[in-house]
């Protein structure tokens, strides 16, 4: 890690907390239906880091399943409901445990740009929504969440978070500061796991072949735990591995950052001699 040369233009990490930040939780439908512990962990981590959280009741889903399948018109009501729900709380930030859905919500402003009412509202949402690790690292300026996990992990990098949201380093920095955690590289980490939303169900031949490759690469790392930033990818990879009897533990990064926490270990980036790593890493692909 090099010192200085912070070239990130997207986020200003120096954030002076005049007040406790008010954070609206975007839970995502998969957390609501299937992964309660991811939501719990996210909330506990954020509160421990000084955030006041709120969970708007009327939120449902970002609308990717239908929009990405080509049903643009049929998704508009979903978008508008989500905007209304997320703006129902006067929060400083909106934070969610999934880069993919967060990016979809950021896209509302382009899709609804001609809508005189929802265009500006979508813009407002886009300006304050962050993915969980991005928020911790780049907005709160935290480098160590105080967690401990004595295990060897490998990380599945999510495509939408890295390529569309443009955040490819924050999760790695945070994981590398988890006490006793050893991270091993995943071969061909850049390849999609084969989830792709409805792609996984509409194109089972392609999707299964892709996840089979991913599972093999994960098993080859001999890691104890697979960590991911996206419940959907984890559901896909784990779903295949469980069906095929592959032994591994799967954790969302929020669960890792909430594991065996000693609050005294929590550290701001500015209190270390480390420089902020740009979101886009080396930027050559």
């Amino acid at each position: 890690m090099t010192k200085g040369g912070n070239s990130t233009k997207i986020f200003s990490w120096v954030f002076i907390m005049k007040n406790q930040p008010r954070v609206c939780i975007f839970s995502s439908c998969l957390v609501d239906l299937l992964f309660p512990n991811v939501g719990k962990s996210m909330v506990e981590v954020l509160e421990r880091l000084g955030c006041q959280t709120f969970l708007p009741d009327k939120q449902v889903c970002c609308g990717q399943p239908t929009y990405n399948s080509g049903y643009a018109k049929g998704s508009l009501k979903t978008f508008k409901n989500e905007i209304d729900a997320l703006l129902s709380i006067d929060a400083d930030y909106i934070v969610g445990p999934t880069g993919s859905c967060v990016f979809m919500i950021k896209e509302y402003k382009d899709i609804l740009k001609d809508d005189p009412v929802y265009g500006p509202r979508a813009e407002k949402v886009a300006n304050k929504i962050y993915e969980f690790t991005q928020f911790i690292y780049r907005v709160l300026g935290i480098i160590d969440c105080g967690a401990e996990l004595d295990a060897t992990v490998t990380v599945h990098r999510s495509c939408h978070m890295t390529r569309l949201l443009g955040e490819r380093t924050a999760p790695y920095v945070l994981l590398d500061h988890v006490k006793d955690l050893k991270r091993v590289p995943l071969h061909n980490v850049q390849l999609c796991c084969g989830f792709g939303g409805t792609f996984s169900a509409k194109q089972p031949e392609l999707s299964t072949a892709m996840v089979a490759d991913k599972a093999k690469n994960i098993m080859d790392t001999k890691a104890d735990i697979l960590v991911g930033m996206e419940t959907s990818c984890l559901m896909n990879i784990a779903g295949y591995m469980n069906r095929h009897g592959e032994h591994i533990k799967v954790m969302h990064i929020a669960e890792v950052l909430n594991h065996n926490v000693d609050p005294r270990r929590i550290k701001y980036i500015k209190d270390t001699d480390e420089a902020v790593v740009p979101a886009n890493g080396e930027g050559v692909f």
Partner: protein
Amino acid sequence: MSISTSDKPYKERIIDAESDKFMRAAVAKAQDAQFIKRTASRRELGNWNEWRDLAEQIRQHVLKYLPDYLEEFADNVEQQGGHVFFAKDENEAHNFIKELAIAKKAKNIVKSKSMVTTEINLDKTLKSIPGVNLLESDLAEFILQEDNWDEPTHIVFPTLHKNRDQIQEEFQKLGYDGDNDPQHEARFVRGYLRRFFMKADFGITGCNFAIANNGMINLDTNEGNADITMAIPKTQVVVMGMERIVPSMKEAEVLDNMLARSAVGQKLTTYCTFTGKKKDGELDGPDDFWVVIVDDGRSKALGTEFEPILQCIRCGACMNVCPVYRQVGGKGYGSIYPGPLGEVLSPILGGYEHFKDLPYACSLCAACTETCPVKIPLQHLIREHRIVEMDDKHLDHSMTNLILKMVGVGTDSPFLFGSAMKMAHPGTKLFNEGGPNSVEPMYDGGKIDYVPKAVPKLIHGWIDTRDVPRPVKAKENFRHWYKHHQPVDAAPAVKKEEGQADE
């Protein structure tokens, strides 16, 4: 239409391709090798993203003023004694070249690799002229030709689906008695084709970039076949897609560098040539210089959200990073333009009816968009095609269509979603065969690993190969927990920070 490479239905092609183990291993190996070379060559250049900005700007500028640049280019070619023909579709293009070959009494036609000539079905048209010999001179295209005009499966590496043993066997029919070493096979082709080159009287090349301000053609190759094609025959025909134009050699030079690094991880291709009609005093090169500028459906993208696909410089990087291409190779797509580029371009050139499945052969992972040297938002355009197909053309009448429309209704209603959160747990009780779990702790609350046959295909698509955790009970879900939880105390460092800031 000639961009189509198969009459088989999409699903059949996918399954065929997936069963081809050699091909899949070859593609994976090629992708991995190219990843290393490409990334290294881009890093070596430095400022890669700023170079992409420049390349994108060049391409977008040219598209914006396309008719003006074509006019300038055509004026310059004509002034130097060349001929320009504008072909609105593939028939006009190949018929024109056929007429020309007949008028010139061509006997031995030699071609260098060009995707647009494949697109306009030129080989078949020229072979129909009695007494004409036609030879593809690019090593890969020659291999395809000798295998009964097999279809290309990659725009830069057309024979990615063939191995050295298959090629050895093919060459043995031509008199090759060497081993399966690619070096020896290539050297055999050098000698074999050189005899043909020496009697070639009609040469056909593609065009990487046409130079508007001097009427020259810029070609990038590694083998040297294009340059020999432009040296020996007295007549040369250049076939170019109408968008392959740049203002001057300065912009061509930028794109040549971007192309080589993106396509093959080289700084420049071995031969990068700027060429035109033979000048007075020169002793070889084309006396007769013809440029055929082809639309063939490209103009359908102009002025639409799909216009950026015309920025493409055919480097093939998008297919070299594509996880779907990795599984099915080029054949699965059924188009001479496979991969992400093909998913966007094929429906435009060949129509939605024929290529409606292609935009769905994509997980929208955006690796293509990230690697594209001219910054085409490929995954975005793929999704735009889906929207055209579903919202404008209503091309899906299956159960899947119905289900996704219902999902649309379900996700816009907090009430329906609330009911789903309540009902999902009891509603999924039956879908469990009760096998052991190997992955922790995702299935501690149960799993769905089976659905009855009668359940829609879409659900089987997932459940037949993958488990799903069983939805949690309403009283154990995240929202229920949140309502009842006590906020966690802020950490000491945080309190100190907030306190400081408060002062």
